[in-house]
Structure formats: C-alpha cells, structure tokens
C-alpha cells in the first residue's frame, strides 16, 4: 500500500507532463513558425486605429465589493466540506449549528443586497 503522499505522485506527474506539453509545443512553434516583426504588427490592437492612452488603464472599483463577498462565502464553503462529510453521525445538533452559521452569512448577503452594493452600475 502506498503512503498518503505517494498517492499524490500521479498529480505531480500529470502537472509535469502538462508543463512538458506546453514546452514542447512552444518549442515546435518556435521552429516552424515564421518571425517577421513589423512595427505595425507589434502595436496594440484596437480595432485597427492607433491605440489611445495606456493599456493598463484604470478599472471600476465595483469589483472590490464582489471580491469581498466572494472571499466570505468561499471560506464558508471550505468549512462546509468537512462538515458535509461527517454531519450525519453528529445528528440534528450539527445541522442546527450549520444552519445558524449559514444564516448569519446569508444575513450579510441580504444586508449587502438592501444596501444596494449588489447592483452592477
């Protein structure tokens, strides 16, 4: 029987195989593909016009609130999985406890919704 870490050997091997695939393919492309860089070809593509301003432009702050909400619920889901695996043996107490936990988070979602931050403006 193999040890715990040995069972992840396959995952590691597949990751290495994936990296090798990308490396070999890029190598093949470097050998086969033509290389004729022209100033116009290397310009940033903007519908055929000359690019205006910087490419790394400013973006909307609205992503930040969604990012926050996401982190809260994603951490919750990390807590959920171990609980989902064993809650049956713990009975109703465990379900009620998780219901309270989910309830508090859901309350936060309702609050965010009533405050209007879930509107994408």
């Amino acid at each position, binding site marked *: 029987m193999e040890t715990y870490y040995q069972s992840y050997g396959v995952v590691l091997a597949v990751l290495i195989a994936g990296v090798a695939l990308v490396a070999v393919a890029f190598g093949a492309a470097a050998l086969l593909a033509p290389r004729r860089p022209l100033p116009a070809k290397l310009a940033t593509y903007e519908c055929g016009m000359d690019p205006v301003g910087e490419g790394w432009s400013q973006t909307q702050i609205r992503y930040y609130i969604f990012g926050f909400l996401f982190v809260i619920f994603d951490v919750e889901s990390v807590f959920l999985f171990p609980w989902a695996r064993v809650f049956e043996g713990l009975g109703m107490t465990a*379900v009620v406890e998780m219901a309270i936990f989910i309830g508090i988070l859901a309350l936060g979602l309702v609050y965010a919704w009533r405050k209007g931050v879930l509107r994408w403006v």
Partner: protein
Amino acid sequence: MIAQAGVSVIERWISSYWLVIVAKAAVVLVFFLVAPLLVGYMEHKVLAHMQSRLGPMYAGRFHGWAQLIADGIKFVQKEDVIPRAADPWVFSLAPGVAMIPYIALFVVVPFSDQIFALNLDVGIFFVMAMSSVSVIGILMAGWASANKFSLMGALRAAAQLMAYELPLVLAAASVVMQAGTLSMIGIVEAQERYWFVLSQPIGFLIFFVAATAELSRPPFDMPIADSEIIFGAFTEYTGLKFAFFLLSEYGGIVAFSAIASVLYLGGYQAPPLLSAIPAPVWMAAKVAALSFLIIWLRATYPRLREDQLQRFSWLLLIPLALAQILVVGVVKVWV
C-alpha cells in the same frame, strides 16, 4: 457508504510505483489531448446543423473529421506575435496556466470502478480547486497584453468566476452531504439505487448553469464577447498560444461535463436494465450528452448583460444553493 474502490487497471498490469505513475500521466495527457478535440468537432458540426449549414466537410475526407487536427497543424505554423507594449513573460506563460489545471483535473475522473488514475479521498474538493485556477491564466493574459479590451475581458472573467464559483461549490457540497464522501468514485457508488439528479434536481440545474458560466460559454460569454470587446483577454494572442486557450475551453467543457455526470448522473453507473453495456461507455455517453447541451445553449440563447449575470448569481443561485444545503441536511438526519 464508502466505496469499495477497485484497483486501477494499470496497477494490475504494472507493479513498479514509478512506471505506474508514468503510465497514468501518459494516459491522462492523451485523454486531455483527444477528448477536447472530439467536443470541438462536435461543436463545429452541431452548431452548423442547427444553423442549416454543413460545417467542416473536407479535412480527412469523411465529414471533415480531421478538421481540428488540421487546425492544430495550422496554428503551430502561425507567427507568434507578442505586442511591443506587453509583458512578454506573463503573456507567454498565461496559456499554460490556463490549460494545465484542466489536465490535472482529469486525474480524479473515474470511467469505471477499474478505470481511473487516482481515487483521491478529497476528490471533489481537488476538482473544485483545480477548476478555478484556470481563471488566473486568463487574468494574466488580460493584464500582460496591455490592451484595454483584454483587461476588460479579464476583469469580467474574474468577476464572473467569483460570482459562479460559489453556487458551483455549494451545489457540490450538498451532493457530498448526501453521498457522505468526497471521493469521486465514492459519490458514484453512492448513486447505485438512484441518481442524485432525482433527489437534487435544483442542485443539478444550479451546478449546470454555474459550470456554463465558469467556462464563459454562451449565454455567459461576456468575458470574450466578440461583438463588444474583440476577443476579451485573448485579443492579442496568435498561433499556438491562442490554440491553447481554445484547448483549455474545450477541455473545460469535457471536465465540467464529467464532474456533473459524476455528481448527478451516476457517473459510470448504467441506468436500470442496461447494465450489459460496459461502464466506460456510459460515462462517455453522459459526458457527450452534457457537452451537447452546453453547445446547444450557445446556439439558442443570446448573451446576458453583465449586471444581469451578477444579479442572477448573487440573488438567485447562491440563496437557492444555501437553502438546498439546509434542506438536504434536515432530510438526511431525519429520514
């Protein structure tokens, strides 16, 4: 109901630990290179026929079956353009970062109780983790391109992943609750009496919609909306790098179809009375059927708006998924 997981076939033929690992990695890699091509070809043909066209007909003589192989050869010969303004290293690494997680994901997908690479005890958790790494590649692509449209596409992709990762994970959590195990094979074995799509139909819908969104497939294709932002994060990509992004999209379709089959459609289990047909055939048939559905959606629905997309997830899918977790919990403890 923990599965009496069989031994993978490869382990029965070969005994050396290292040889087994190499063989498994080779099989997974070959599967990843073949299955997305089949789905890609299916998309060409299905979309064409749904629009009263024939689709590819020439490559390989018979109904253009070799079209995607020809495309691949063509892509390799195309010039690799890196824009002057771009960050060259991040720009070149992005396609790999987007694609490799999907290869790793297939390690835990079982095709029968004998045919699998690894029966990981945290299988579904691993799958969820791997499936969300790929968006980092898209963010890298969008940022490194130094192009406004790329950046917009990348940020849309990130926002979309944030919104739809949650319903996906929460729906998977309620399947784990019912199955009582995180192992992919364990979940399939737990569906021996009935498929979970019967006990959790809403969960299946949530999962399927969220998976479509996570893949940025129409009607959730705002990140690459070609009529608005050229081609999103992939605007500046040419040749093989562009092909890798396409490959990871089709690999993703296969991956999410496989996960949905395992979670809800009984994986490799045959429907009642049809167990004469071997298990891998059933798994392949279910993956093909779900991939077909995803392609069908593309031919049917117009693109959503960004605000509609966010509202749909936060105000409908996530509350529904949370409610379902509680319902499954109460039912499972009481009954």
